């Protein structure tokens, strides 16, 4: 019913429906700010556009609509990923108006950039060619550089933005270089053709180098080691809602690229057990193992909670990279599901940090001492988010990690059990991660703060935190809410 209405409005352009709302939003936001007297008006309009886009997307998802328009695809995978990005956008926009860190004088530009960045993500999710994916990624990246710079009176932000832009520019160059090499050899930019190429042709060193350049370029987006060094600086420097946007949204786009490009390219040859496919699997296994280990180990030494969360998110990307080593549809579903749970748990943690900054609490872990007394709700929520990140049942992080690791243990392919060692490294890493999460919990619950004065954070923050909390618990005990769609989405990989 509702899906019919959408198709009658948008006609052939239905695959673009959710993006159109975002585009309109991006275009009108500066004007709204100029004519609206209050920031709140701008905010309301922005929120409205997000909700419109989100509702459209959910309707298309739940009705299993499939279509293609000028190469832009619409299927369960694209709508599911779009939903993920729109959830992130919704949470970020929701708290942006009350956060003391985001600039109000440039609210129009701020929202326009957020919409632009998300538009790029949606575009990536719907693309099936290296070139369109590249364009989408760049749209997101360039918007994000500006977003990082837009923070009130803080030198750290502009510095982080410049760093981010320079390293980002370099990774873009690498990506493009890689794409051109691959195009030169395989003669196509369509993922389907490339998948055929790697299935029926032998490995050449030039293709290998082109591939590595692409992995490095997109590895920058997901902050895979050794392309991760910008992440802690940028997350620390940017306004917390923007850090959250980068950690949960932008990073998930990078992972979507990994699934759509590398997994789609190699899944056939990997399943067939060809040496070419296996080589790529091993490369990803190594990157995954190093990424999660470096992320978790370095996180232990971080005194700043935003930096700690940045490293923890590097580690989480490492966990998800397991799916590229395993290369099965089952692993893909688990990976997508983990992205969802990660949005809620990591997003929730960032929201609490952001909310507390509004209330005048610092970013150091030592500033969180005695929080349980000052705000029992925030402390309990933070504890649940962190324990979920550490993978403690029955929270969402446990379930999704369980799916991820289980997929690594039981690959029903030619080489059964090849990746058990990777699952073990991942489990060990979860144990290490608990150490630094427990440190925060200890500060909040067990150590004594200097004051027991109650903390009040803006109500909107509390609402956003409750949303995340509900999903962290619900997805833990009832994963089928989303996991069914994740499994369905794997059918559209190629």
């Amino acid at each position, binding site marked *: 019913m509702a899906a019919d209405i959408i198709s009658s409005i948008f006609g052939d352009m239905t695959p673009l429906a959710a993006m159109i709302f975002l585009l309109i939003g991006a275009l009108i936001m500066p004007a709204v700010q100029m004519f609206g007297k209050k920031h709140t008006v701008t905010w309301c309009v922005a929120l409205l556009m997000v909700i419109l886009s989100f509702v459209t997307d959910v309707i298309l998802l739940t009705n299993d609509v499939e279509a293609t328009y000028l190469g832009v695809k619409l299927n369960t995978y694209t709508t599911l990923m779009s939903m993920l990005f729109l959830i992130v956008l919704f949470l970020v926009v929701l708290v942006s108006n009350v956060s003391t860190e985001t600039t109000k004088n440039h609210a129009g530009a701020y929202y326009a950039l957020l919409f632009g960045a998300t538009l790029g993500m949606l575009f990536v999710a719907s693309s099936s060619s290296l070139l369109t994916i590249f364009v989408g990624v760049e749209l997101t990246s360039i918007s994000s550089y500006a977003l990082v710079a837009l923070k009130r009176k803080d030198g*750290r932000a502009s510095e982080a933005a410049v760093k981010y832009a320079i390293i980002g520019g*370099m990774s873009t160059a*690498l990506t493009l270089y890689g794409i051109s090499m691959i195009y030169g050899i395989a003669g196509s930019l369509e993922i389907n053709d490339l998948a055929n190429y790697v299935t029926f042709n032998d490995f050449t060193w030039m293709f290998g180098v082109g591939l590595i350049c692409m992995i490095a370029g997109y590895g920058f987006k997901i902050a895979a080691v050794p*392309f991760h060094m910008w992440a802690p600086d940028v997350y620390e420097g940017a306004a917390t809602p923007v850090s959250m946007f980068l950690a949960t949204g932008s990073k998930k786009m990078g992972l979507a690229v990994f699934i759509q490009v590398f997994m789609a390219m190699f899944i056939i040859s990997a399943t067939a057990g060809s040496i070419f496919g296996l080589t790529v699997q091993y490369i990803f296994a190594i990157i995954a193992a190093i990424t999660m280990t470096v992320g978790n180990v370095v996180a232990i030494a971080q005194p700043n909670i935003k930096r700690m969360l940045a490293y923890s998110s590097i580690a989480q990307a490492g966990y998800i990279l397991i799916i590229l080593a395993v290369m099965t549809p089952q692993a893909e579903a688990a990976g997508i599901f983990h992205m969802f749970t990660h949005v809620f748990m990591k997003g929730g943690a960032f929201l609490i940090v952001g909310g507390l900054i509004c209330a005048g609490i610092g970013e150091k872990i030592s500033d969180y001492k005695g929080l349980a007394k000052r705000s029992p709700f925030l402390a309990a929520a933070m504890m649940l988010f962190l324990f979920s990140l550490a993978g403690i049942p029955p929270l969402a992080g446990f379930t999704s990690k369980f799916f991820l690791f289980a997929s690594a*243990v*039981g690959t029903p392919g030619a080489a059964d059990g090849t990746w058990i060692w990777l699952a073990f490294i991942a489990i060990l890493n979860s144990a290490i991660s608990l150490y630094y999460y427990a440190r925060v*919990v200890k500060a909040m619950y067990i*150590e004594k703060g200097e004051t027991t004065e109650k903390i009040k954070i803006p109500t909107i923050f509390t609402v956003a935190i409750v949303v995340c909390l509900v999903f962290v618990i619900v997805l833990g005990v009832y994963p089928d809410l989303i996991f069914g769609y994740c499994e369905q989405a794997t059918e559209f990989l190629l």
Partner: protein
Amino acid sequence: MIAEFTWLIPFIPMMCFLMIGIFGRKTPEKGGYIAIAGALLSFLIALAISIEYLGSDEFANGIAIESSIRWFEIGDYTLNLGYYVDGLTCVMMLFSSFISTLIFIYSIGYMHDQGERKNRYYAEVSLFLTGMLGLIVSSNFLELFIFWEVMGLCSYLLIGFWSFRHDNGDEASANAASAAKKAFLVTRMGDVCLMGGLFIFLNLFHSLDYSAMFESVEAVAAANPGLFTLALCLMFGGVIGKSAQFPLHDWLPDAMAGPTTVSSLIHAATMVKAGVYLVARGFPLYVQDVNVMLFVAIIGGITAFIAATMALNNMNIKKVLAYSTISQLGYMILSLGAGGYLWALGYEELGALGFFAGCFHMMNHAFFKALLFMGSGSVIHGCGTEDMRLMGGLFKKMKITATTMLFGCLAIAGIPIFSGFWSKDLVIDTAMNAFNNGADGAAIWFLILWLLAVITAFMTAFYMFRMWFMTFMGEPRENAQHCHGESPKTMTTPLIILAGFALVSGLFMFFGLTDMLAFEGEAIDGVEHGIELFTNPFTYMTIILAILGIGIAYMMYVKKTMDPGKFNKNGESWLYIALTKRWWFPDLYNQISWKLGYGVAKGVNYIDRQIVDGTVNGLSSAVVGGGDVMSKVQTGHVQDYSSVVLFGVSVLSVLILVTFALLGGF
């Protein structure tokens, strides 16, 4: 069918947890009565289900009642949620919920003056009970693992409960904080192993349901012997962490920093029993591998012995009990290991006897250890210290506490009629059986373990009575003089009830307990084995050793005819120092976890941030305040980041070629 309501057993404490959290503050005792009602209700349901099950045909045929609903599917793995009731489940859920109820009642008196914080206490203990009862009734290992973790989480909060106790953050509260963290992280090491083991089982069995696994275990174990053994060992790693077995035992004495009621909850009724329960529950898996069972037995024997030595000279009343807990857990694991070993070799009756002895000792221990802990809580409540050097002569002031604790001490020392005697002697008997029937080479191990178990029995009698004499006999010292008499009725009534059980629970083996704790239908004859104990000369030997231990304690601490200073050179002999240092285990942990772990983290961080940044410090200090964004970088140099990226690309490019070559691509 009341059994259909088995899910209520963990669900009711869960609801209590929510109720206490939401409106417990407004009720009397800040939710204490809700917690008691919940635990009692769970116990009553468990009782009704047990009675029904014991009278059913299923029980007569040795079949478990089981029901599961599908939770989720991943690929071709289906994971369920459900309940599983057999004799072992009945015994476990009965004593866990019963003792927890008594502990909650006792808490009303013990925690009375804790004010608002009682609310948090009762909420957390209710959730803790949910974890334990859920773990017991689970129908598969994943569900068990979830409750297992819930319990770990609560223990973390409960052990650290008194970190706020003193407003100026003194040593005691600092201890509570670090003890909580230690307990959490150390047991978590075990949990990681357990989870790894479960993943392998999932891969091998494509299910984690008990019934499905037990059915196909022989075929699977024969098909993948290597992986199966690895999974068993990893699963036992979880037990080592949770049940405080050597070498991960050291968190347990520290965990005494929590309130005494929490100690008795964790050490008697719940948590540490979960590890033993896991071995008992997974027994059909364990008995497939004779070497793993030998390993289990060895770990148990070593734990029993080492922990007992550390209790010998400790001055803290709760720490002595903590070491005795570890030691007794070692007995249970030893018994299960030796029993499983015998079963794996084909001696089914002797194997079943070992299984029974381990579970039986777990139950008896739950009663007398809860009694001892709550008794020590009553003493601490009365004189405000945990140091036994400041007590003494309390018998006159606290008659009920002293008498009931005497029952507990007699039980744990293994004096006939008292419960500990029956189960402990069966455990020692099992070790002897394993020696007599073991394969060449391995049998000698069991002789050593038997010897360790016997010496442990002697030490147990000594240190328990040392504790009792130092506390209740002799001249009142410092704090004992200010003791304001017996504890309130809410505290003494549970003690009296438990003292009754410490006296009689051993006799349950003559009244059908053996049928409930039968392994794979191999029920041993309780009456026969009970009487047989008295025809065995070794039994008399252990009784004599126990009496000897008590005698020495009496000479040293009451008669003062023997001077303990002579044995320890007034605290300067190396052995004495080794024992007070807990055989240097805490230091070892610190070296490994803190120095090494944190050092590595620091080092990696340093490389990550500093080495690649090169001259960052000099540069940034030169331009501080210049506002030059390009070069003033407080955390890292952008040029260096770029070099790392390029370096990474080069390494990966080489790596892909090498990997391809290694896999035989060229």
